[in-house]
């Protein structure tokens, strides 16, 4: 987890040909390098050894309920936005053994699953995803009880962010003020510039650790021309936002509209598949499961990602609290954009657009809020 970020950060230039040297320096430093890779028609994060494993020359097209990979005309290393996975699968594992227990006569012996936290270097973290990590930090580390698994992994993580130079069809980070340029929370932040005759990254150094790493990676001073090209790239992304979300007064808007008939309208479309919560980089809910062995003498407790869209999520003896899908969708959306702010002091949505792209029926968080907003102005108060 990057520390010591100062205000006047240093900027240098890394030639694309030296990208492998950056990976190697991280690997030499004991990090598992995790980056975007191509798997089964999608860009997903996975461990990589070399730059060839990244989706060089690929791009992605996003729309409500649709995702498509395309080949680019250039050799951009980061010429796409975000896929169905987020970094949370590394920091907050989808399944995890919490502890084991042995029965010993009448007695129970609980054994904590010790973890030597893995040392990940995350390469290609988008600005919205950096914000998502900072949001999950508050959930898992700021309260009275911290999640030791998350904390260990997060504190170890080295972060190489990448500013976006193009936006996806479902992106709305500009509305959520999380992108397309990373502000804080990285060790290094790259802006990629691809031209006919040159291909380089402007690298912003965000921490002492980042500066130290660069000593082992050939780089040069950034000229005003480099910097101008990099900021033009980011401005281009900002001007291409696929979606916008009007967040003015959104908390009170949603609290006021808890009984809006519009929730029923969403419920008629929603399949309750929980995709939106699985792909969301801030959703954090989990459930627990018991595993027992055949002898009956040992048991384990496992934690798994859960979703507020499942019917037994709110089960108490006698039945579930949120039986209708309208109540479940309302709970999810109101949590993201309203209750989250009361709980953690920020929005729970970073505008990454995943829930729109990966919703099989294309339900769009920005459109649903807009509909509620306009239904309010069209009816007398």
């Amino acid at each position, binding site marked *: 987890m990057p520390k010591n970020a100062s205000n006047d950060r240093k900027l240098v230039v890394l030639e694309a040909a030296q990208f492998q040297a950056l990976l190697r320096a991280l690997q030499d430093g004991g990090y598992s390098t995790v980056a975007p890779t191509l798997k089964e028609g999608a860009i997903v994060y996975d461990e990589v050894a070399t730059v060839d494993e990244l989706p060089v020359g690929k791009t992605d097209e996003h729309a409500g309920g649709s995702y498509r990979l395309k080949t680019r005309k250039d050799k951009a290393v980061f010429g796409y936005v975000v896929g169905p996975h987020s970094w949370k699968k590394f920091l907050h594992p989808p399944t995890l053994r919490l502890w084991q227990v042995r029965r010993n006569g009448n*007695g*129970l012996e609980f054994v904590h699953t010790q973890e030597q936290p893995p040392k990940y270097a995350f390469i290609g973290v988008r600005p919205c995803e950096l914000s998502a990590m900072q949001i999950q930090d508050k959930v898992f580390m700021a309260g009275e009880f911290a999640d*030791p698994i998350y904390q260990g992994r997060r504190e170890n993580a080295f972060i190489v962010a990448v500013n976006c130079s193009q936006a996806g069809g479902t992106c709305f980070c500009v509305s959520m003020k999380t992108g397309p340029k990373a502000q804080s929370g990285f060790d290094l932040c790259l802006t990629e510039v691809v031209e006919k005759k040159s291909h380089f990254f402007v690298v912003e150094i965000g921490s002492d650790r980042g500066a130290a790493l660069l000593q082992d990676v050939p780089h040069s001073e950034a000229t005003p021309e480099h910097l101008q090209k990099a900021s033009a790239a980011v401005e281009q992304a900002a001007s291409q936002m696929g979606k916008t979300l009007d967040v003015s007064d959104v908390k009170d808007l949603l609290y006021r509209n808890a009984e809006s008939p519009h929730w029923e309208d969403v419920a008629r479309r929603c399949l309750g598949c929980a995709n939106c919560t699985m792909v969301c980089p801030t959703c954090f809910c989990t459930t627990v499961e018991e595993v027992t062995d055949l002898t009956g003498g040992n048991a384990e407790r496992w934690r798994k990602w859960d979703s507020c869209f499942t019917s037994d*999520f709110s089960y108490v003896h006698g039945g579930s609290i949120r039986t209708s899908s309208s109540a479940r969708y309302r709970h999810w959306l109101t949590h993201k954009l309203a*209750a989250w702010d*009361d709980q953690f002091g920020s929005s729970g949505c970073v505008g990454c657009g995943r829930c729109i792209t990966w919703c099989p029926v294309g339900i769009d968080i920005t459109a649903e809020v807009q509909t509620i907003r306009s239904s309010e102005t069209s009816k007398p108060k």
Partner: protein
Amino acid sequence: MNQMNSNPMLPRSFAINRVLKETYDTFTLDLAPAQRHTGFSFAAGQFNMLYVFGVGEIPISISGDPNDPGRLVHTTRAVGTVTKVMDKLKLGDQLGVRGPYGTSWPVAEAAGHDVVIVTGGIGLAPLRPAMYELLSHREKFGSVVLLYGARTPEDILYKREVKKWRSEFDLNVHVTVDRAAGGWRGNVGVVTAMVPKAPFDPYHTIALVCGPEIMIRFTVMELRKRGVPDDKIYVSMERNMKCGIGLCGHCQVGANFVCKDGPVFRYDRIKNLLEIREV
């Protein structure tokens, strides 16, 4: 042995020192730490996560005396998977315990006030520690009223204790049942019906309410009718809980995590939420 601190999900083993059958489906367990006898401090209204080997972990209120930390007491109604296996446990068996968690009844704030407790069924369990506190500092409070409803006379919890409380000169205890066969000479009807005539001064009262949500709703209605202000009414809420410590997300009601912002809430702080369907 400092593992507990590093993993807040890891239970400690507690041994069952006493099993008491309260009613046909409700039982009380006295527990003590299996390793070192450290005592268990808690505040009235708090709960623990109790783990039954190989079956699961559930939130159960602490129902013993806060001034007697040597005995950890839980009263549980056997309703489903975990509680039915817990009901079969015997003296000497062990459970996993994590806690205490959550907010507590405002016993200290109630000093100088009348206190009215309205509860139904198993809801008396989380309120018994509050009763013990009130009784051990009886002089600090005005009238103390307990209104308790059970389904039938057989379902009345802590029968001997309730009888004893009813015979005290400085306690007002009223018990009602939903239905009764012959032989029951007490009240029949819902517990909320006892609120209008209960002997407390509505303008100087703290009300503690625990029971099913529908019962809470009607009780609050009756209390407000008598003039008890919303910020003097406290209710305990129940939600699905998987962690008890604010990490799993299951217990949320609006912006509240019932496990850490509750289970005891001041009514004015959640009344808007209680009015929303399926919140």
